């Protein structure tokens, strides 16, 4: 028998008892509806969760220069001076797995405003991309500094909440000047509070400024400046602390100290402390590490058998948390989905069994006029599948409507998931076949004589 005719027969049979068909479908409608709603709300929550964990820096890679050593004495991580801002740009340009990258220069020194002072955890010299890398783009106040500020080495900065509290006692710092190592920085933005990170490090105790400004104006020639007053003193007197060969002259005639103070010659030997890069997503981190390694080895002209002059750290712990959480969430939803669908399927099976009993005479008649067992089997199976698919379609609408309602009324994050819809259709057809099979098989095994005699 043709498929179309079978489907038509099934529809007609179902239409003969619309109330029963509707009640039967209800199980699947609610089942699929629950699945869709759960999937959409769950996917939304999962995405929100992912975003939260990602904002903790799960996708962030930190590239540090490698270890310099001299005569067997290692100087510790980050002691070579090979990492440059150009490396950062090259990584962003040449690594497809990288979303963004930013050079980082770190300083730790005293900050002064009026009669208050404070030594923040970190003063970061960076680019505007840092905020995007750290998922910190939304500022509490003001606006971030620009690429132009970075190019010009402008003295602008963004404060973390802790600094606002400590230096300004909670008042708005916008437009005020703070001094870092006697250099005035205008506060143009305030970061949103982020709290402590996993290590207990206060992430709000931070100042962000263009890396050029921090490098050339604040840390100056020194990598290790801790105390403002001593640094100022040594800068002017002790030339031995100058790390950069350019300042030791040779190329240019020595300048008088007055001349130098009036018109400092900028030193643009630009090594940076680290590069912070963000992978597209947590799944691409290992790929990103590979790509960065390739790019940097090429740029630094490292021979194949020589070791890297840099190292890359990822947030493995966070990434693991992220994937565990996501898997857990997915499995939980799957379990709930399965249970509700099984319940719906059992409902279908019950009604189909009742239907087979009730229609015994019809089955007998169909057999008498030439229906084979498999025709009957197919008819009831198609009926069950039609019921389930109709129920599935209604369930999708119901579930989607439900999740939209939740979004509108409760403002929960909701994400439409085409995969869930496709799965729901497949599963409802599957449920129809699995739970429709037994009643259909029972019907096909009826003896036409008995069936015709059945009252």
């Amino acid at each position, binding site marked *: 028998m043709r498929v179309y005719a*079978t489907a038509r027969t099934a529809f007609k049979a179902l239409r003969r008892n619309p109330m029963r068909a509707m009640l039967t479908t209800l199980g699947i409608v609610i089942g699929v509806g629950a699945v869709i709603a759960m999937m959409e709300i769950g996917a939304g929550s999962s995405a929100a969760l992912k975003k939260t964990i990602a904002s903790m820096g799960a996708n962030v890679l930190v590239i540090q220069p490698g270890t310099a050593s001299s005569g067997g004495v290692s100087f510790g991580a980050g002691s070579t001076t090979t990492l440059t801002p150009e490396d950062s740009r090259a990584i962003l340009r040449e690594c497809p797995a990288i979303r963004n990258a930013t050079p980082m220069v770190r300083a730790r020194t005293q900050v002064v405003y009026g009669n208050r002072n404070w030594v923040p955890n970190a003063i970061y010299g960076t680019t505007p991309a840092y905020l995007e890398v750290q998922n910190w783009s939304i500022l509490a106040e003001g606006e971030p500094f620009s690429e132009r500020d970075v190019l010009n080495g402008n003295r602008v900065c963004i404060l973390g909440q802790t600094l606002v509290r400590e230096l300004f006692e909670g008042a708005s710092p916008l437009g005020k000047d703070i001094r870092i190592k006697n250099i005035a920085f205008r506060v143009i933005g305030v970061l949103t509070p982020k709290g402590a990170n996993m290590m207990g490090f206060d992430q709000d105790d931070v100042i962000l400024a263009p890396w050029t400004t921090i490098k050339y104006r604040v840390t100056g020639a020194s990598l290790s400046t801790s105390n403002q007053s001593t640094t100022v003193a040594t800068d002017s007197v002790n030339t031995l602390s100058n790390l950069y060969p350019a300042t030791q002259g040779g190329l240019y005639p020595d300048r008088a100290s007055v001349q130098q103070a009036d018109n400092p010659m900028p030193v643009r030997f630009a090594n940076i402390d680290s590069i912070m890069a963000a992978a597209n997503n947590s799944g691409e981190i290992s790929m990103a590490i590979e790509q960065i390694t390739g790019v940097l080895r090429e740029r630094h002209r490292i021979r194949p058998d020589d070791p890297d002059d840099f190292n890359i750290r990822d947030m493995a712990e966070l990434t693991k948390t992220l994937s565990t959480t996501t898997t857990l969430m997915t499995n939980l939803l799957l379990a709930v989905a399965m249970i509700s669908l099984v319940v719906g399927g059992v409902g279908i099976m019950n009604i189909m069994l009742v239907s087979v009993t009730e229609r015994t005479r019809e089955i007998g008649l169909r057999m008498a006029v*030439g229906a*084979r067992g498999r025709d009957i089997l197919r008819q009831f199976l198609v009926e069950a599948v039609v019921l389930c698919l109709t129920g599935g379609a209604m369930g999708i609408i119901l579930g989607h409507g439900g999740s939209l309602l939740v979004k509108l009324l409760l403002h929960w994050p909701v994400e439409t998931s085409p995969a869930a819809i496709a799965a729901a259709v497949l599963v409802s057809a599957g449920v129809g076949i699995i739970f429709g099979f037994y009643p259909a098989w029972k019907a096909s095994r009826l003896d036409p004589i008995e069936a015709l005699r059945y009252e």
Partner: protein
Amino acid sequence: MDLITLRSIEKTYQMGDISVPVLKGISLTIRQGELVALTGSSGSGKSTLMNILGCLDRPTAGEYWLDGQETSTLSTDERALLRNRKLGFVFQSFNLLARTSAIDNVAMPLSYAAEDLSEREARERAAEMLGKVGLADRLDHYPSQLSGGQQQRVAIARALINRPPVLFADEPTGNLDSKTSEEVLQMFERLNTEDGITIIMVTHDPKVAGHAKRVIRMDDGVILDDAAPAGPGREAPGGMP
């Protein structure tokens, strides 16, 4: 031409350890174009014989030749196909599908037919059949909107839709009053004489059997009597159309 030939058909039902013989060696021949009534008291085995003749059941022993084909060895599916192509059934209780229009009821057996008719062809044929039984104006009526006689006529149209050579009627007038019974029986006679359809009726009503050209009386699993009915103006069996 012999349409149906039975050779010492036996049917025994197994009730646990006890075997109950219902048919004890039935042999008979029915030729094309006959109008046969199968009568007998209840328990005489006429329904069992009817089921075997209708290929709904298999004999325990014996041969059943239908239209030149030995049927007692056919599989369930093959018998279903045979029923579809060669046999029509009319039941006492009509057995129409409820909430299904007359035309769809009539067209139903076509969906199991081997020949592939389009939806439109099937409906045309069903309409034609309904016209033949005088219900051309009731195509879209539901069974509940039809009288008993009309319902039985729909059932007859349904039995004839695949143009079978044989029509089985199991107590066709059992649920009808005498007037509509008469109509239905006259229709059988007309189908028999005009279209040459072989009709086999099971009945216990002598009045119904009186319409047949040949009456087979059964008792206790054997044929008691096989003759033309007593009554004026009836031909002897065997008249070719």
